[in-house]
């Protein structure tokens, strides 16, 4: 028996596929099969596998095709929604980074005003009466618009950050 097989193997396989083996085949071929190990093995295996296939096919407990169709549609829809959601998630992350950068810049620009605040607190005498004007820092009077910007910016950052966290958790 060689790797290429017997030249009459195809003939034997055709007969087997059509169900003509062994009744409807020539005596010549039957005699050949008796002597040819390759063809004999082909017949043995093909008959065993075909029988096993028929038996297993009848034992199959099939699911309704409608269920599979529905599951496939559902999966395609989920994949599509995920595909749509991917750029949105990217935009959310980008917005978060932009806001963080803005917050850092804002805090850095206001840090020097913080030094004035510290100086003002240090300059305050505990014996002095506490008037509302005394709480108003002199530094702020010169650049009062800084605080007016800082508070709304920080409030916006906090609000948007909260909204982002909420949206991200909602998605998950």
């Amino acid at each position, binding site marked *: *028996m060689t*790797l290429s*097989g017997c030249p009459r193997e195809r003939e034997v*396989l055709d007969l087997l*596929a059509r169900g003509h083996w062994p009744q409807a085949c020539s005596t010549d071929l039957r005699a050949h099969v008796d002597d040819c190990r390759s063809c004999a*093995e082909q017949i*043995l*295996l*093909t008959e*065993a*596998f*075909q*029988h*096993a*296939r028929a*038996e*297993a*096919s*009848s*034992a*199959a*407990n*099939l*699911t309704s*095709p*409608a269920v*599979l*169709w529905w*599951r*496939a*549609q559902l*999966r*395609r*829809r989920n*994949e*599509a*929604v995920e*595909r*749509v959601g991917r750029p949105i998630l990217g935009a959310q992350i980008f917005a978060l980074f932009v806001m963080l950068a803005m917050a850092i810049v804002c805090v850095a620009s206001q840090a020097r005003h913080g030094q004035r605040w510290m100086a003002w607190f240090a300059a305050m005498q505990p014996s002095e009466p506490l008037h509302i004007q005394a709480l108003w820092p002199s530094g702020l009077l010169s650049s009062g618009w800084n605080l007016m910007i800082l508070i709304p910016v920080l409030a916006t950052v906090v609000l948007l950050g909260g909204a982002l966290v909420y949206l991200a958790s909602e998605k998950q």
Partner: protein
Amino acid sequence: MSWESILPNVFAGDAPRVAERPMDSDAFAGFYERSARPLWAYLARVSGDQALADDLMQESYVRYLSAAGPTPALDGGEVAARRYLFRIATNLLRDHWRRPKQASIEEIPEEFFAAASNSAQSDSRAILGPALAQLRPRDRQILWLAHAEGYSHREIAEITGLASPSIRLLLFRARRKIARLLKLKQITQRSDA
């Protein structure tokens, strides 16, 4: 209102592909009726596990239907569609074998034990089953595809992802081995009788 109309641009990149897809639910039902039993037989006999065959068969069809690219049913007819389905099932089987085994005794279905104890009821299962169990999974796949499904070397290569010349050699060796086992089993059965 369908979800495609709600998300109209989801398939903007592959709109012609979806539009050309001819397989509707009725066509699929027909295709399923013709191909499901052979596919289940392949999965059940190659894996030796009917519950696994059920799961993998369903997953094969779902993957077939939700495939991103154009399915062979579009251009190659039902023969190509079947081959594509067998390829999906073969890949799923391979993935299953690669996964680490974690099954406990409680997770094994009762039918598994029933099938094992009643194995002598069926001739083909009694003879072919133990012989197949002694082969490597890849050899079982190749033998089933060649002898039960009647696929050519080229088609088996396409399904399994192996090279066609390798299939010839692997099939030759697997055939020799299982033929020897089957003959041995037949001789043992005759002597027992």
